């Protein structure tokens, strides 16, 4: 049997700000992973990535990242994506700070 497909989100960095962004089901970009589209079908993943890359004029380096469904939307499965959605551990900078200021 083929290995089960690990669900994905599409993520990139914003061209102007440089910060981490995620692709939504509405073909827009969000700063919150929980609002990203969770792609559960392997065939769909590549098509969605092509769709995201159509917006390369305002994003950089879109790729598919492993994710899983959580109670509030997609969550990372690997610590790299955990850091990307949170910010560095030595200062309260990046996303964690932005979220605290909401």
């Amino acid at each position, binding site marked *: 049997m083929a290995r089960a497909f690990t669900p994905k989100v599409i993520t990139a960095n914003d*061209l102007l700000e*440089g910060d981490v962004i995620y692709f939504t089901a509405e073909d827009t970009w969000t700063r919150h992973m929980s609002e990203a589209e969770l792609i559960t079908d392997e065939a769909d993943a590549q098509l969605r990535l092509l769709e995201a890359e159509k917006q390369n004029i305002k994003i950089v380096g879109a790729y598919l990242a492993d994710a899983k469904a959580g109670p509030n939307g997609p969550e990372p499965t690997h610590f790299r994506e955990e850091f990307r959605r949170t910010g560095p551990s030595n200062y309260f900078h*990046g996303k964690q700070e932005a979220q605290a200021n909401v």
Partner: protein
Amino acid sequence: MYKYNEFDEAFLAERNAQFRAQVERRIDGSLTEEEFRPLRLMNGVYLQLHAYMLRVAIPYGTLNPDQMRALALLAEKWDRGYGHFTTRQNIQYNWPKLRDLPDMLDALGKVGLHAIQTSGNTIRNTTADHFAGAAAEEVTDPRPYAELIRQWSTDHPEFQFLGRKFKIAITGSNTDRAVIKAHDVGLQVIEQDGQIGFKVIVGGGLGRTPMIGKTLREFLPQADLLPYLESVLTVYNVLGRRDNKYKARIKITVSENGIDTYRAMTEEAFLTIRGQYDGTDQQLLEEFKAHFQAPEFRSASTEAFDTAYENDPVFRAWADTNLDQHRAEGHAIATISIKAHGATPGDASAEQIRVMADLAEQYGYGELRISHQQNVILPHVHKSDLPAIHAKLKEHGLATANLGLISDIIACPGMDYCNLATARSIPVAQEIATRFDELKLEHDIGHLQIKISGCINACGHHHVGHIGILGLDRAGVENYQITLGGDASENAAIGTRTGPGFAYDEIVPAVERIVETYLAIRENAEETFIETYRRVGMDPFKAALYPEAAKKVA
């Protein structure tokens, strides 16, 4: 100190204007990221995990107070209020915005700083001994030669697209503080029969295949420096592999072809290339030497120093660890630790950067240095000024007395910032420093260098740490490999792996066990960690790290 002339300033302004236009063209969509990426990298702009990163070169680690203040300005105006000093005598800013980068580069250009060739397959910023021009035992100041190399290599048409990045380091001392044996080319200025020349070392490097450089030429006369370097690079351009990025560094070329072949080919190329140099470079060199002339060192009583040293134990502890012997009477080299216990190694706030600039202006003959060990140096200070300097440093959290000690850790940005990282390095450094500060053991432990990288690229020099730590990703969790016995000095050596790696929450206890073992088996308090390791080898440390394995054997 070397002053950029009008030509340099015009060149920088022009480069920055070009970059500004390139940024605009990326934003309006005329350039794709594929087209823009090499252009931004040529100007020191990376895209990291959370943001862009700007890497600014500090040629041969030398800065004047105005340049230092410009670094503070960048941190404050366009970043998050701090800068990160790196092992390559650079400063990195972790949070700039794309639109601000051209302004940042302009602000740097005004004080003669730039980010050119801090990236890409070019000849990178030539690094130098951070005590250059000040160390008591130095043959001669290596920086005029570093400047000659910088001018020759900047925008040199043949060397913009090398097989891979190319790093040169230079020292004028027997004590190697520039890790010349871990660079593509390492140069040591030496004197032979009254003649100044260089010992040329080639093929050192860290990264995934660490190697200690080999001697290519025992003595190269001063006048032959550029033609000989050009010959080394010409041979590299011909012989070097371009099929595989990981085999493209000169260390691989040298080890695959053998140092003797490399030497023979270099010498042959040199016969032709030498004739193409008409001596203009040597005239330039003489000009640079004038720019780098030592200040007029003042003479004064050192009584203020002696009194403070006698009466103030905090000052004495700092003086004992953070001062080095200066060549001029009554003077000292003062290293400012950017490694406060628990803080990020190499990070200085805008305010701290300004304080250091002011101190250099007021007491330090207007000179500052950045070391590859991520500290800042006042290379020339009269001893009588040290109590005042120390008092000021204390007020700003800059008086940590830990130079060369276990908390004076080199750490790369790791997974907290770096796109290539496989694990974090900064928090590991923070926790080790905090732990040994709590134990109050660090002065007892003495000289011990810990170096940490967040992936095999080895930006944190872990291979040459007495204790090296390499962060890896093992099946989706952070895992840390330890090496022992590395050495970044003139006795350069690559460390040996202890065995299986340690989880994130096991790494600090593991380091503690290594240190306890050392304290238990050293012959006396004078025997340093590396000396003990050389005497007893790996076994006692292994036994302490892997008690289970030891039991099985027994």
